[in-house]
């Protein structure tokens, strides 16, 4: 098994996609000459040329909308929005066009568009650059929302997403780009419909996704040292949600903690908690717990940022509380 960084994995997926299908092109701010804000498309401008690697103006709404139009017109655009923080300028196109066109046109038009963006906090870039809004996007019917947390998913989800006839949004946690991981054997394109158990256990289900997966696994390791066997579930896909895998795990462990880097109020963690309650209420030995971000704009100093975000020790503590320790 090869060890590569998440950034290299994204780049490998993009490169393969561009090689496989001449309809695929990449468009976004600084994807070309600059090589991608997170260097995911470094060298692509030379390799694929300016027709297929398109630097755009700072016009999020229009280049996302142009991606929708190009998809309608028979292309397979990959639009890179620099980060989720700037995607708000494109929300109208996403919500009112990408997500509605198929249903509203009575099935006449579909939008095979892939939009990628970096998300998340943890890099001391302060309040305007630290949002975790994938849960907001997961609110929208008509789009798919993917949160690759491993290098295998970072490479493979993109390839599967490009086979989809409908819009797919991929959220890459900015903290992960430099992380190294082992690329799993098997075909590069991976399933994008199922959650994955990243660690098995019988005492509690820790349910998470994206950047929080690694903090959760760290928490599970330390819990194991105390003899608590936590099962770690990586949702992978927020919409359409594979709730059955979550329920199966909770039926086994009877306890659940949901870890989500978004603010607690109205978070995706709240949705998971509600669905657990709806699905397996009588299997629960305790209320579902949540570890989310504090309800503040994410501050710049490291100690404050750390305090605002979910951390392994907070997850451990939440498990202790559940187990009455």
């Amino acid at each position: 098994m090869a060890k590569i960084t998440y950034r290299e994995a994204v780049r490998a997926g993009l490169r393969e996609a561009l090689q496989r299908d001449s309809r695929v092109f990449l468009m976004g701010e600084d994807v070309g000459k600059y090589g991608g804000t997170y260097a995911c498309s470094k060298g692509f401008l030379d390799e694929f040329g300016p027709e297929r690697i398109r630097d755009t103006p700072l016009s999020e709404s229009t280049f996302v909308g142009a991606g929708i139009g190009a998809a309608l017109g028979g292309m397979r655009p990959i639009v890179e929005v620099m980060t989720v923080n700037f995607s708000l300028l494109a929300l109208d196109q996403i919500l009112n066009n990408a997500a509605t066109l198929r249903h509203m046109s009575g099935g006449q038009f579909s939008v095979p568009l892939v939009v990628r963006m970096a998300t998340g906090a943890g890099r001391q870039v302060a309040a305007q650059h630290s949002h975790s809004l994938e849960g907001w996007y997961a609110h929208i019917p008509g789009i798919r929302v993917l949160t690759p947390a491993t290098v295998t998913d970072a490479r493979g989800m993109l390839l599967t997403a490009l086979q989809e006839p409908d819009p797919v949004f991929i959220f890459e946690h900015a903290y992960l780009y430099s992380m190294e991981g082992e690329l799993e054997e098997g075909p590069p394109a991976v399933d994008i419909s199922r959650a994955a158990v990243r660690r098995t256990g019988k005492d509690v289900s820790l349910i998470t996704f994206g950047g929080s997966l690694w903090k959760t696994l760290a928490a599970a390791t330390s819990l194991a040292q105390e003899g608590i066997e936590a099962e770690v579930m990586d949702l992978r896909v927020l919409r359409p949600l594979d709730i059955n895998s979550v329920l199966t795990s909770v039926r086994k462990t009877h306890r659940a903690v949901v870890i989500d880097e978004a603010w607690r109020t109205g978070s995706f963690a709240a949705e998971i908690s509600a669905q657990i309650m709806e699905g397996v209420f009588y299997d629960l030995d305790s209320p579902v717990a949540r570890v989310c971000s504090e309800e503040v704009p994410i501050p710049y100093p490291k100690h404050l940022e750390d305090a605002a975000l979910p951390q392994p020790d907070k997850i451990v503590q939440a498990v202790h509380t559940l187990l009455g320790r």
Partner: protein
Amino acid sequence: MTVPVTREQGLEWLRQMIRIRRFEERAAELYQLGKIRGFLHLYIGEEAVAVGSIPSFTHEDAIVATYREHGHALVRGTSMDALMAELYGKATGCARGRGGSMHFFDAARRFYGGLAIVAGGLPVAVGLALADKMQGRNRVTACYFGDGAVAEGEFHESLNLAALWKLPVLFLCENNLYAMGTALARHQSQTDITAKAQAYALPAEAVDGMDVVAVAAATSRTIDFVRSGKGPYFLEYRTYRFRAHSMYDAELYRTKDEVAEWKRRDPITTFEQTLRQAGLLADTDLEQMESRIAAEVEEAVAFAEAGPWEPIEDLKKDVYTHP
């Protein structure tokens, strides 16, 4: 008012304008009867724009329009039956009844809506044109929007990007002087819309949108420009809406005199006169035309009435291609 080239062409333009007018007058009645609900934005007064411009595009070209798109879809060739059924919300409508008045779609005619967020269609049109350019297809995308759209960021972003990438899109601003109740001069520091387009290095011009012949001439000329690969073009049609913004408004924002003044320039009656004066239209032509259109409208109403509702079991159909 300019004279059309042939009698046949003149009669066809007149016929199409009257079709739109009678279709919408009937729709307004049906609205009073509660057969049609929601928003219903009438195009009455502006018919010369759709009628003069839409036929200049080929079947391969794409049309992106707004919520005030009844005329555009009719002239593009979607059947009046399917459009009336869509107004009713019936499953036999052009979008299976799901969109209603604001969301006409017709894939077979490359009619991409019927989009109801002001300026939201501009980026999509830019993308359609980008796809054509990248695939080496010699097609043009027509992008219709109102004067209100020029205030939106997407207008500016889209003009810039289309000009920067030399995309085959024709921006068509239907300037009826009002965005709901807000007159252009009350929301724009620069009221010359073509000047805004020119600022993005787009060739731009304004044309009398009450004159179907002038609309047709300007549109086909600019389509040729775009089709020849020279990049986008911007046309402003100066027109006027005779009715309320949607079905009802108190029209506090304009005077009766102003409306009356514009009605003297009604694109249908003025064109009718022009044709008569040129000896291209006889009373019998008009009578025949009107009676055929009346029959078409009544058939469309009957079709809509008879159509089934989409079953509730299909509510979630087509949210995704593969659920």
